[in-house]
């Protein structure tokens, strides 16, 4: 496996020799990965990967289920450690948003959203205030006193997003955050997330298996092969703000089509 080709995913050619450069995150990149790999025993989950995630960018990682993209996301967030290579992360708060809302059933929404601040030792008044602000960001403010079991799946996911945003993260890592929702709710939340990002401009990395979602949300889409994860396409999505029409616009369709083709080819190759 050591002979496997490295993933070269930064579009900037001047960075060709970046792996020889000292590995401190630059002013422009939040994350810098050089030959980062993750093995679980004999199983190679992530093939050696080079990746730069610029500050304030929105990157989507697409690939078939079980290809190792979630593992890569966990490496980016530092909740798992690479078994090889080097990963540097700029200073700043990191937040995770999981596929399930993961709310505490015995806490009201606002108390759930407060949790990260509570653990960080923020004062009661301050965290209450910021939790309310975060709930307002996801348009859930009216439901702040409710318990999770009283809410729809979409509202719970919004609350989960608010909890991820409450610590004002510089890096937001999203692991198929809306994967368990119905199509309509999902589109709605995708639009809100994109609008949020355009306003707040945190650095975001999204894992999804939906190509249209990746193209809609991100500025840049990385398509991964089946395990071990290897980047097979690196696409820049159409610029500008998104609206309901973006899903079917020509530029989006074209981008989604090239991502889809790359993914299908990779799957076919893996079968052979």
């Amino acid at each position, binding site marked *: 496996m050591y002979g496997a080709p490295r993933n070269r995913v930064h579009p900037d050619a001047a960075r060709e020799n970046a792996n020889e450069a000292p590995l401190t995150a630059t002013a422009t990149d939040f994350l810098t990965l050089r030959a980062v790999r993750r093995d679980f025993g004999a199983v190679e989950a992530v093939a050696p990967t080079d990746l730069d995630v610029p500050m304030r960018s929105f990157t989507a990682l697409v690939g078939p289920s079980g290809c190792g993209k979630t593992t890569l996301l966990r490496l980016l967030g530092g909740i798992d450690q690479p078994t090889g290579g080097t990963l540097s992360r700029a200073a700043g708060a990191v937040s*995770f948003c999981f596929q399930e809302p*993961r709310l505490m059933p015995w806490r009201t929404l606002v108390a759930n959203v407060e949790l990260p601040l509570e653990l960080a030792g923020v004062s009661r008044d301050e965290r209450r205030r910021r939790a309310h602000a975060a709930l307002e960001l996801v348009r859930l403010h009216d439901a702040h006193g409710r318990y999770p079991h009283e809410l729809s799946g979409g509202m719970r996911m919004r609350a989960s997003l608010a909890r991820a945003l409450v610590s004002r993260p510089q890096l937001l890592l999203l692991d198929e955050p809306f994967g368990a929702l119905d199509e309509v709710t999902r589109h709605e939340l995708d639009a809100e997330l994109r609008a949020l990002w355009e306003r707040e401009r945190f650095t975001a990395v999204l894992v999804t298996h939906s190509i249209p979602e990746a193209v809609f949300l991100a500025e840049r889409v990385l398509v991964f092969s089946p395990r071990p994860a290897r980047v097979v396409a690196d696409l820049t999505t159409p610029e500008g703000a998104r609206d309901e029409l973006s899903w079917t616009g020509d530029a989006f369709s074209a981008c989604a089509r090239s991502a889809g083709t790359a993914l299908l080819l990779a799957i076919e190759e893996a079968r052979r």
Partner: protein
Amino acid sequence: MRSIRSSLGASLRGSVRASIGPLATIALVVALWAAFKAAFGVKDFVLPSPLGVLRAFEADPRTFLVGVRETATSAAIGFAIAAVGGVLVGSLLSLSRAVERSVYPLTLLFQMVPLVAIAPLLVIWCGYGRPAIVASTAIVSIFPVIANTLAGLRARDPGLQELLAVLGAGRFTAWWKLALPSAVPSIVTGLRIAAGLAAIGTITGEFLAAEGGERAPLGILIMTAMRNFATDRVFVAVVLAAGVGFLLFGVVSAASRLLLAKWMR
């Protein structure tokens, strides 16, 4: 959001509806009892009539009500000790797998020892009077609390556990913010079982350790009435003892339902 008042109202209406059947059964049993006694001419000291039992209470209500007060107090104190102690012991055991594995089976074994066999020891150690009775109550009711606390503390959502780890929560914080709240429904179940057992421990304790006189509890009233062949008085005391157990269970159940309203999904 359901208001507490409406949920209380619903649960009250529900419990009224739920008690119609049992009440009818009790009425039927009392009627059969009266009919049986009349038909076979059973002597009063063997089986008093239902009316006779009522009259025995009416003849001496003060003694019985003092007995209820004394027994209920012992049961409540013993239950409270078992509740706090059981949650504490269960929590301590849950902190370490090794400790849990080596101590928990022993607590189960300890539970197998019949209370009536330990009660004399309690008299030796605590003397006659309330401390021995309270100890006997606590010993009977503490085990379900320990067992349910342990089970509840183990059953935490792995997703939330990971979330807390990501948020940088330490072992103690994770225990306090996640494991303990997750365990509440299970602990409450343990407390309800304990409340049902408490009166049994109290009466048993009273049989061996209580003192008679002005403030004789129900256990003593039962023993005294038995020695005097005052069967009607035995019946009164037994019914009242059951009432004490039922009351404690009812109070704990109602409190737990209010508490658990939050935990319901």
